[in-house]
């Protein structure tokens, strides 16, 4: 019997980034197959290629033994391949039944047959356990219910191969258990499920086979029997790669700076997300001068909200103080003036105005320091730009070049160069080297260490465990909005942190 899915030698590049490099995947019919790997390992890209959303640059795609290379999303839907995206594709103002039938409506004459559609939703629900009231508005559903509607949509269209992209990232533990029951029911009916995830306990719990991806390529295919979180984590992170990335702690010894009073002090920080859930759940910590506190964790566990709350971009309860000064009443600009610098996690969304020149981007947020009278002092802006471009080796070295035309690494260097130019005491560095090349990573890491050695306090958030381990003096692990571990660097091993990150172990 042929496999349900066979992908071989898939290549896919976005500009200079090679998302998939010779990736392979084999999924047998009637199994739950986990596709795991770190952020940016190319899992989602590979599945989008399978579901027809992106064309592959090279490689072969076979479904049920048929070569379907280069097909479209509608071909994939017709062939029974359905994908549930990480970001739901639901129309909030329509009912559950309307969302499910949209595009393949059931009609009675010229009119929608709402009753029949609702009955179909109920039948599918009874068969699979995906129970949602079909006449409710999607806007009123919980995240877990919305996800059920997404799966119902694919089943309504006859999906026999279901791809789920990080389905549990938004679910509460009981909802996760319900989802597993649904997936098991689908498998019992002969359905095939591909589950993209980076939570290892889940992988062990539901999947029959595990494929591990790293840096765009498939590095391991493991049957569930005999797989442990440790063995999967080892395959995901790749010990050799980690060693090559300066895994050894190169800072000064832990414990330094403990005697001095903390520069950044955060107590009882509470950030509420949608639906009144605590995204950051009463977090306490402080960062001393000359210290880097690294926050490790799987993305989406509250790191973004933590940083944004401290930076003043998000409402929060609790206390945030910088060198004894209460930051809570201050807005973003005045927090900056008080000595807070912020490298935002997404340089395109927050860090840069892409159509502005390098020079203008280098004064963004500090423009009030570059004025003469009511106008901007162009000569000073230019001098500042030239100095920063030299110090950070930004290429091209032309201050007038729009930021949009630079590579990701050089764009990131603009952001770092700008934030380091402030007269700051505390630096929030969020994913400071995401998607940048090795050379830029080295330079940015060196600058962060320099700042630390000058007595600045740095809060580093990174989804890249190797980065946290390479830079931090102390390591916190964030899971479910809380700090579940706070360790000295010397105590923090990747294995231990990995267990905290996946929620396998809870301690504080």
């Amino acid at each position, binding site marked *: 019997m042929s496999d349900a899915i066979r992908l071989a030698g898939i290549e896919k590049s976005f500009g200079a980034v090679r998302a998939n490099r010779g990736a392979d995947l084999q999924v047998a019919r009637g199994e739950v197959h986990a596709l795991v790997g770190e952020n940016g390992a190319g899992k989602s890209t590979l599945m989008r290629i399978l579901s027809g959303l992106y064309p592959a640059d090279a490689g072969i795609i076979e479904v049920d033994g048929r070569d379907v290379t280069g097909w479209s*999303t*509608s071909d994939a*839907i017709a062939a029974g391949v359905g994908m549930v*995206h990480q970001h*739901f*594709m*639901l*129309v*909030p*103002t*329509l009912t559950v039944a*309307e*969302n499910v*039938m*949209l*595009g*393949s*409506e059931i*009609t009675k004459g*010229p*009119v*929608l047959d709402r009753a029949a559609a609702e009955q179909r939703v109920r039948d599918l629900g009874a068969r699979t356990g995906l129970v949602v009231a079909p006449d409710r508005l999607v806007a009123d559903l919980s995240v877990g219910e919305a996800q059920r509607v997404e799966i119902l*949509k694919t089943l309504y*269209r006859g999906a026999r191969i279901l791809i789920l992209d990080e389905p549990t990232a938004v679910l509460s533990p009981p909802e996760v258990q319900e989802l597993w029951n649904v997936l098991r029911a689908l498998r019992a009916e002969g359905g095939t499920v591909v589950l993209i995830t980076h939570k290892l306990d889940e992988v062990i719990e539901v999947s029959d086979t595990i494929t591990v991806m790293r840096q765009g390529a498939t590095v391991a295919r493991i049957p569930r029997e005999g797989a442990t979180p440790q063995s999967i984590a080892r395959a995901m992170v790749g010990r050799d790669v980690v060693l090559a990335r300066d895994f050894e702690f190169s800072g000064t010894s832990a414990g330094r700076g403990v005697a001095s009073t903390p520069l950044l002090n955060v107590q009882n920080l509470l950030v509420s997300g949608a639906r009144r859930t605590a995204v950051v759940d009463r977090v306490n910590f402080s960062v001393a001068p000359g210290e880097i506190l690294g926050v490790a964790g799987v993305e989406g566990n509250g790191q973004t909200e933590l940083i944004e709350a401290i930076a003043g971009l998000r409402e929060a309860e609790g206390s945030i103080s910088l060198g004894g000064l209460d930051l809570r009443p201050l807005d973003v600009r005045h927090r900056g003036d008080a000595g807070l610098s912020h490298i935002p996690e997404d340089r395109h969304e927050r860090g840069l105005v892409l159509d502005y020149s390098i020079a203008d981007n280098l004064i963004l947020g500090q423009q009030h320091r570059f004025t003469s009278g009511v106008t901007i002092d162009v000569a000073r802006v230019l001098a500042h730009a030239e100095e920063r471009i030299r110090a950070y080796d930004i290429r091209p070295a032309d201050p007038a070049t729009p930021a949009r035309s630079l590579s990701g690494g050089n764009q990131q260097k603009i952001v770092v160069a700008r934030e380091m130019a402030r007269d700051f005491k505390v630096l929030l560095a969020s994913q400071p080297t995401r998607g940048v090349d090795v050379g830029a990573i080295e330079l940015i890491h060196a600058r962060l260490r320099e700042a630390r050695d000058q007595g600045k306090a740095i809060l580093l958030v990174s989804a890249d465990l190797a980065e946290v381990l390479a830079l931090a003096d102390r390591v916190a692990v964030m899971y479910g909005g809380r700090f579940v571990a706070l360790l000295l660097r010397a105590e923090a091993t990747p294995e231990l942190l990995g267990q905290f990150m996946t929620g396998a172990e809870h301690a504080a």
Partner: protein
Amino acid sequence: MSVLDFLSQTLRIAVPFLLAAAGGVLSERAGLIALGLEGYMLGGAFCAAAVSFASGSPWLGVSAALVGGAVLALVYAVGTIRFRGDQVVIGIAINLLAVGLTRFFLRLFFGSSSNSPRVPGFGGTGTGFLALAYNPLVWIGVIVLPTLGWILYRTPFGLRVRAVGEHPAAAASVGVPVTRVRYIAVAFSGMLAALGGAYLALDQHQFTDGMTAGRGFIALAATIFGRWNPKGAGLACLLFAAAETLQIRLQGTHAIPSQFVEMIPYVLTIVALAGVVGRSVPPAALGKPSTE
């Protein structure tokens, strides 16, 4: 004056609002701002008058209005959907274009800068319900919003329109042809508004320069005040028409300056948008270029 007179006059004034507001609801529910309603109406009024005059048939005039409205609406659709232009800018341009074109052709056909000669209408003179009953456009005006409601909430096309105006990416992901749905919605919105214009021209038996006098904007206000659903928009049209009737009736009494009454639609719309009477949530994709 009787209550009946008041009601019939209100209906007479409401018909062009109802027709244009139906176009407004349809266009905006598909995600395209209906700023061009005024222009479609004016274009429709001119086409109706010119063809009715030339052919002697008001029915041919109405057909011409449908074509004229659809053409103007498609110009807007091509600009905003195909070329992803700013909907506000192109909507305003459509209105200015309609003013210029009707003025140009008014001079070319009728040698006048102010009005056309008398054109045949649908009969039924005077005021009162009996006179209105002779005019098929009145009947269309009465049923247009209930019909639109039926289409939007009961048919597959309506479901797709609502999905496209709210979350086009989701609609596209299940194979709904987002662009085609939007073109169709905009073309019909142009035709509906043009019918409103045709009603004005045929009711007054002539085209006068700029005769829509802001009625398209009142219809847009009704669309918004009615929270983008046909029932609400219909009630808003009737309310605005009643206010205008009242203003006409009060003329000469100097009880309230007429300008204040004329402001009612716009003031109410601002009040509605400010959230005073419940939250007013526009279609989420309104004004955004298609993502397909």
